[in-house]
């Protein structure tokens, strides 16, 4: 049986996270325009297969298929009547795959709405949406609420607050620094780390983003701003390009593994990958960090 995730991190071990969900489900046949969350209820065997592939590749922390599982986001796909069912079931599926050894992160992504004053979403409503999602994820048995791909510091704050209202699980939060080292809303890594740590977020970091090399610049800034927080690196496998109508992500598993080793040297304690990665990338990362399988 696994120790609590924070105890595990406190022991100094590096945890290998998983890789892409969206782009993997798409290559498994998820139709364009249909969110991966739809498959949680309709094609659970596909979700389980993806989790298992990552676990076999060496993931010790897998994320639920609920990146777009907030009410705001599910509404765009006409699935907002199933917020509770989708999030809870997604957590159960991930737990089923992970068993007693691996950790499950309850994935929460941005609402896709702009918050006031730029957009219409109020802070209070955002907190409610995130709390609703976190509650269902917790009920489904996740180990940690794992907020990711945030750009707006205010929305990240709302997500953390919602998660803390909903449950007593630890909260992690990572941002997408895709615009010259900042998020597209202009948030600096130091600002993100400091704000999140002050809210009691246990682990902060960078996911998605631009080129994975940029994470090497980001981690030290976060570390300096929030030395007490664990660091997470979960970047894209490069930047997508279309070549002959096919999507190509240019970072190979070997390249991602090499970078992962550097992330760990910079203090990262949770390392995985995001869009465009596959179990092959995770397998290479796990081998680079933990040596050959299982050590």
């Amino acid at each position: 049986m696994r120790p609590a995730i924070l105890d595990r991190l406190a022991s100094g071990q590096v945890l290998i996270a998983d890789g892409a969900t969206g782009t993997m489900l798409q290559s498994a046949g998820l139709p364009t325009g249909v969110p991966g969350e739809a498959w949680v209820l309709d094609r659970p065997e596909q979700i389980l297969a993806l989790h298992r592939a990552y676990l076999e590749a060496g993931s010790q922390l897998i994320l639920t298929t609920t990146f777009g599982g907030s009410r705001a986001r599910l509404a765009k796909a006409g699935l907002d009547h199933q917020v509770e069912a989708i999030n809870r079931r997604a957590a159960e599926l991930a737990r089923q795959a992970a068993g007693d050894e691996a950790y499950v992160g309850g994935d929460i992504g941005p609402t896709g709405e702009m918050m006031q004053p730029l957009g219409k979403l109020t802070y209070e409503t955002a907190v409610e949406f995130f709390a609703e999602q976190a509650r269902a994820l917790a009920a489904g048995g996740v180990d940690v609420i794992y907020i990711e791909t945030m750009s707006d510091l205010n929305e990240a704050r709302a997500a953390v607050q919602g998660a803390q209202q909903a449950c007593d699980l630890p909260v992690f939060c990572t941002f997408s620094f895709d615009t010259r080292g900042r998020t597209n809303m202009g948030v600096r890594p130091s600002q993100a780390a400091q704000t999140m740590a002050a809210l009691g977020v246990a682990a902060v970091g960078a996911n998605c983003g631009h080129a994975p090399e940029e994470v090497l610049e980001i981690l030290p800034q976060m570390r300096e701003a929030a030395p007490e927080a664990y660091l997470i690196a979960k970047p894209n496998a490069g930047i997508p390009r279309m070549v002959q109508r096919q999507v190509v992500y240019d970072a190979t598993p070997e390249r991602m593994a090499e970078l992962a080793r550097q992330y760990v040297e910079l203090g990262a304690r949770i390392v995985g990958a995001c869009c465009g990665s596959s179990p092959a990338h995770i397998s290479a990362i796990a081998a680079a960090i933990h040596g050959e399988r299982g050590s």
Partner: protein
Amino acid sequence: MVRERIFEEMAQAVIDGLPDKARALAHDAIQAGIDPLEAIERGFKAGMDVVGDGFAKGELFIPDLMMSGEAMKAAIAALEPELMKRKQQRQVLGRVVIGTVQGDIHEIGKTLVATMLAASGFEVHDLGVDVSPQRFVDMVRQVDANVVGLSALLTTTLLNQETVILTLKEAGLRDKVKVIVGGVPASPEWAEEIGADGYAENATEAVEVVKRMVGV
């Protein structure tokens, strides 16, 4: 001298992203008998250009651009009655139909481009997100558009930019309208591959490309 000072304040209100201030300055200008077109071009628009430059250089970010866009909009709305009274019109540089392609709900990049185009003097028809090829075609025909802008964030929906181009061809409209594409997975090579007329990496660049397309 006083007029120059007012223009500077107008520009600054847009740069600072203050819609109330911009609106108040627009009313002041009307009171002072300043030509509303001059107020737009030498005042508010000058501020928007500064913001656009800062955004392109990576010194400013989405919230800055959006708040400045709001200030610009507030100013123009306040000047509108005076423009009507004087039977003046801001010169329309061209008509642009814009939207995020079918299957894709990502809004922010497309909205920024629409905001910047409108601020620069284009008549912009924003169809929103998840727009079918037919809706693009219908709107292009309805407003006799010069340019159509196609946004996509996802690698899977990027292919739908091509579908719109093909649908425009079938409708016999392809020669009448220029097509610009954008979005994270798009590139100049992609634009060329699918037979678009241009690509822009960000909202500021999009304004330049669209201006070139309509010959201004």
